[in-house]
């Protein structure tokens, strides 16, 4: 496919996803999801649009489209295990149902997003290509992350099938980490939009907040952090099929986490007390960005991983490592 056609297809996916999630994901749906109710009709729309197959074999789409879709999902805080479903479909075969992915710990798979609503759960480990696939899903513990997103524990039955996820570069765990970095970049983009809009509308001391230099500077820093998180994420996606994948994913996850901490704090400060209410939608995005810092490796985990790679090449090769040349 030519570059132009590829770009066109990507634009269509992004536009369609923005419309779909924009129309369906509202405050009510997010509140319901955070009470543990699965967004069945949203999921049906995703399947009807064919989005569940983006990035899977024979779909005509690849990782670029897959992660672009996750960026849009992050912008809307779409309450589905979309990253998990798309990556599972890409790795172990397309399923029409909801798939999820968690940490494989012997007889259990923990931290499974929407395990309770999934028909297939894959257990992976940070340091292994081997995974376990559970198709008779039994949830043995229900829990949720900081954002109220279900994170369940699923039993691994005797004789559950094992599979090796073969990726050219990086591994399954790191691709989930990248998914969280991309989703975070998306969510933070919306956080910034909300803060900018509020600062323009809210008046105090006879002028809009956006006219106060202190607020302008805070928003400028937030914009810089969001731009950095976004560029780190797209850079890592573009490196997925190269030997640079592991390092670039580490950089993206580290950068997204640092941006989430900074932007989450500063955006809430701009919004004041209204942004602290449950009624306001800001927290659906900030809590997700905060929660995703700790999923599939937090900043410290990825800093250590990247740092060990660089220590391994030694002081005189730091620069060639950073440049990849």
């Amino acid at each position, binding site marked *: 496919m030519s570059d132009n056609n590829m770009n066109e297809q990507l634009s269509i996916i992004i536009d369609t996803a923005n419309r779909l999630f924009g129309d369906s994901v509202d405050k009510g749906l997010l509140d319901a999801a955070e009470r543990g109710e699965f967004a069945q009709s949203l999921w049906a729309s995703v399947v009807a649009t064919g989005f569940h197959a983006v990035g899977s074999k024979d779909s005509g789409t690849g990782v670029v489209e897959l992660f672009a879709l996750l960026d849009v999902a992050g912008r809307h805080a779409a309450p589905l295990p979309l990253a998990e479903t798309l990556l599972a479909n890409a790795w172990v075969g397309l399923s029409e149902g909801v798939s999820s992915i968690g940490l494989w710990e012997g007889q259990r798979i923990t931290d499974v997003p929407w395990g309770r609503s999934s028909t297939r759960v894959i257990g992976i480990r940070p340091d292994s290509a081997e995974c376990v696939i559970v198709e008779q899903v039994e949830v043995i513990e229900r829990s949720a992350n900081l954002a109220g997103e279900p994170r369940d524990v699923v039993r691994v039955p005797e004789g559950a099938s094992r599979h090796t996820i073969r990726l050219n570069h990086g591994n399954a765990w790191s691709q989930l980490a990248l998914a969280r970095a991309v989703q975070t970049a998306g969510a933070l983009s919306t956080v910034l*939009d909300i803060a900018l809009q509020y600062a323009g509308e809210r008046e105090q001391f006879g002028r809009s907040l956006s006219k106060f230099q202190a607020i*302008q500077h805070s928003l400028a820093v937030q914009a810089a952090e969001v731009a950095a998180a976004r560029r780190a994420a797209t850079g890592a996606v573009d490196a997925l099929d190269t030997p640079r994948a592991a390092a670039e994913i580490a950089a993206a996850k580290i950068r997204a986490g640092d941006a989430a901490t900074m932007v989450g704090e500063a955006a809430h400060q701009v919004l004041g007390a209204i942004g602290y209410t449950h009624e306001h939608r800001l927290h659906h995005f900030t809590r997700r960005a905060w929660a995703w810092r700790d999923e599939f490796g937090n900043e410290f985990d990825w800093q250590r991983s990247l*740092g060990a790679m660089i220590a391994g090449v030694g002081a005189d090769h730091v620069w060639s490592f950073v440049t990849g040349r």
Partner: protein
Amino acid sequence: MLELDRVSLPESSEALRVDARAFLQQHRDLIGEPNSDFTTGHSPEFSAALGARGWIGMTWPKSFGGSERTFFDRYVVTEELLAAGAPVSAHWIADRQSGSLLLKFGSEKQKQTYLPAITRGESYFSIGMSEPNTGSDLASVRTAAKKVDGGWVINGSKIWTTDAHRNHFLIALVRTSPAQGENRHVGLSQIIVDLRNDGAQVRPIRNMAGGEDFNEIVFQDVLVPEDRIVGEAGNGWKQVTSELSYERSGPERFLSAFRVLVEFVRLVGPNPLPHEAAVIGRAAGHLMTLRKMSASVAGMLNQGKQVDVEAALVKELGNNYEKLLPEMTRLALSSNRSGRAAWRSAFEQTQLLSPSFTLRGGTREILRGVIARGLGLR
């Protein structure tokens, strides 16, 4: 929202990286103690060698001594020079800024007069913007040039002028006609001063790091020929703001502290403690991101786009990073750890320079204002 283009460096530019490293290896005797801060090492000999290689004024037309290369190529060469800690300060401003300004706004004669010598690494420029009473509020400059028979007479003073004591020329922002009421942007002009022959008095100012690279310049009835005005008289504000965006997005805005990272990696060795590895990883992760952002801006420069807001984003993040990096390494090391000498030397130099990171080339406050304007807030 501000988003940077998803571009990566082309293979042809990456190929140039190999040549740049070979060049640096070949000239390592001129590098001395490496320092990644672009203002620190001064070596006319190194600058001349770089010029002979065609790597000063890389993007300029061949007719003026340039190499007609892309901004991606220039990006690669500049970051290689900084990472290696090469002494680049002599030609840096002329290459990055003054030459580009002359190319864009200068007369044919000015281009022919000044650009080839710059590309040879023989002619060095200073920037004359700040004054004793003019810092961030650049439009308040009071140094004035008055039209007389046969030229312009300059009176006033400039300050914080890096390397004015050893550079050849200064491009000064001066007032050539009064402001029109509230509109202070009219009546400003850029004018070239020959620092060695026009009679401007240069007095060094010692900085807190012990360096004497910046200066105060006093003009007392300094007469310069008519053809020293850059572009149009009165167009100075537009010219000076366009010049500033070249100044803000380059790798010198995030690599100043790079040698501290290198020495930290050397000190902790191949099997660092977890928190030491984390410092390296965090520093590298941010650096890898900043490089992508800066390369995105290089791509925009290639396309002739306005980059003032994007450049401000890179500088804002890059300067914060340059300040954070030494601090992270410091806190990771116990103060009684042995073998710290090389790291400590790099750290101390960088710590002392660090206040300047968020001052030079536009303060943090000015940059945040530029970004805020890009966000539609002002």
